[in-house]
């Protein structure tokens, strides 16, 4: 008898929880509806697919940042990492005779593992506060990126293989934009990692309460190391995508993506019940961001609106997270 009551209570509770959780999702859908009304062209399938493609780069960056934020640390070098990745790919593939896009990709991501380890070394081993350590790293990486391409934006070099633009501009089965595919695949992988594996549980645990981790034998240092490496690899991937999308490389474009990426992460934290950074939320945040971005583009072309929107969304997300956390207390 008691079990039944508990079960019923449990079900009712679950529904309430679900609505509280998903408000961000509902809001996103609401925004989409509003835009569709203002500009009917919005609803075209190609347009929607474009949105998801645009969400890709910022989304993948955001996913990386979520992993390190979840452990309670910051990574300031994310923006420069993105730039570096696009430059690395451009330069590796510009060598005569080097034709394998895939191999270049592996090499680039491998280098980013090292970058993540470097950040981890500075913070975990030496003990430099994460934000200062990664600030220093961001300078360093910015400089290296510029040095690779001689501060130029490299554009559609003839030595680049055909496949260079595939990830950014190509279509899977001729229909689905590759960026969207990448976002879905990476999103699924990170989601799986953080929600369904031990390692993911550890990651959240460290960010939630490092002291409690000590008492149950979870090593915070190792988790943070993983966080830095994951961030670096994902930012690297985002940079690769960007280069592919633009068919060019830029040593500075990554920095402008940092604030939008942060926005997706904080929107994601507002999505969770109590203001904690989480992967599902970041994905929804990325979509919401891309939606608003695209929608605004369709309505107006004023540059300053874009700035207001970016900064404003982040501020709004921050305030929401604070309110949610306060209520949770």
């Amino acid at each position, binding site marked *: 008898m008691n079990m039944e009551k508990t079960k019923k209570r449990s079900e009712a509770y679950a529904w309430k929880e679900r609505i509280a959780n998903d408000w961000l999702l509902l809001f996103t859908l609401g925004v989409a509806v509003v835009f569709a009304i203002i500009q009917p062209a919005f609803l075209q399938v190609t347009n929607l697919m474009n949105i998801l493609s645009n969400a890709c780069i910022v989304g993948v960056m955001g996913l990386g940042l979520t992993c390190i934020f979840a452990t309670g640390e910051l990574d300031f070098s994310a923006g420069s990492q993105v730039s570096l990745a696009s430059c690395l790919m451009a330069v590796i593939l510009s060598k005569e005779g080097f034709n394998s896009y895939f191999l270049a990709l592996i090499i680039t991501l491998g280098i980013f593992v090292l970058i993540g380890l470097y950040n981890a070394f500075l913070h975990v081993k*030496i003990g430099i*506060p994460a934000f200062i350590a990664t600030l*220093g790293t961001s300078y360093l990486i910015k400089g290296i990126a510029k040095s690779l391409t001689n501060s130029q934006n490299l554009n559609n070099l003839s030595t680049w293989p055909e496949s260079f633009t595939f990830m950014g501009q190509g279509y899977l089965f001729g229909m689905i934009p590759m960026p969207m595919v990448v976002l879905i695949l990476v999103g699924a992988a990170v989601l799986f990692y953080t929600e369904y594996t031990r390692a993911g549980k550890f990651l959240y645990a460290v960010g939630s309460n490092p002291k409690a981790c000590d008492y149950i034998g979870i090593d915070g240092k190792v988790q943070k190391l993983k966080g830095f490496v994951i961030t670096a690899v994902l930012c690297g991937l985002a940079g690769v995508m960007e280069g592919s999308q633009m068919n060019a490389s830029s040593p500075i474009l990554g920095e402008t993506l940092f604030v939008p990426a942060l926005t997706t992460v904080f929107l994601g934290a507002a999505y969770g019940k109590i203001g904690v950074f989480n992967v599902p939320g970041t994905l929804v945040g990325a979509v919401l961001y891309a939606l608003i971005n695209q929608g605004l583009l369709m309505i107006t072309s004023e540059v300053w609106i874009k700035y207001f929107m970016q900064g404003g969304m982040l501020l709004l997300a921050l305030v929401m997270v604070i309110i949610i956390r306060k209520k949770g207390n």
Partner: protein
Amino acid sequence: MSRENHIRKNKGLKENAPRFFLLIAFIVITLVFQIMQPNFLNITNVMNLLAHSSIIGILACGNMILMAAGEMSFSVGAQCTVAGALFGWVLAKESSNSILLALVFAMVIAAMIGLVLAFFTVKLKVPTFVCTLAMGTVLDGFTQILTGGSTLHSSNWPPMLTIMQKKIGGVFPLPIIVFLIIAVITHIIYEKTKPGRHLYAVGSNPTAANNVGISVPKVKVWAFAISGTFCGIAGVTAVSYNNSVSLTLGGEYLMPAIAATMLSATFLKLGKYNVPGTVLAAVLMIVIQNGVVNAGYPIYVKDIVQGILLTVAVAIIVLIKEDGLPSVKLEN
């Protein structure tokens, strides 16, 4: 046992060296550039260099006040640009001619922006580094509006606008004087007055400050306001020196300004932000930038050197000081 005439243990070279790391680095780097390009230390170049570092230096002094209070702001660059843009925009109007008025206007607005930041950070307790980044982006939007999207230069500007291009005694560009005045004032206030002392206490140990009756929130709000005002001064000085309002000015200066402040904590009193260190570091940042170009190296080398310098300097502090560097954290 009396320790009245307590003679501090004479620390050996090994222990004293880190305190002078910044100075040593400064001298070494300057010499290296001089060797690479003997023209480096000629008067025109040095003055030009110092003029640029003055603007960063003013920003860094404001930032130092903020960091000494235990806070942080990544919007100082954008605040600086917006202030400059406001200044230029006001004076571009036919009807206005008073530079002084425009200056005051820009400074006040910049200070008020600081107050808005204080509201979010101190009152609402929003994570400070992200909040200031967001605000910076919003401010960039304002700059876009004010300048119409590109570098602003107006023929309506009164000739006195370019006052910063004047040189004292034919040699010293005015911005340097402005910077020195501000640095000296900041130093005196920070080290030798009650408000400055209380500011330091709030950043160093808020509980201790609270215990003696100092209002921690109030001090922080003031710090934001002061930092904002300094941004205003820096922005106006830059516009005057360049005779134009540049969109990217603040963005370029943000990182060196922050790095300069952090590096100041490696000078003399390890772990304590201070003005002399900030001045030295601000100049060092531009020395690196200028020297690199002068020596014929591509500009990006400056990023690499700055990055390594920051990392090494901070690593030294952290390894020596038990409680490391005062910093800001992301709470979950």
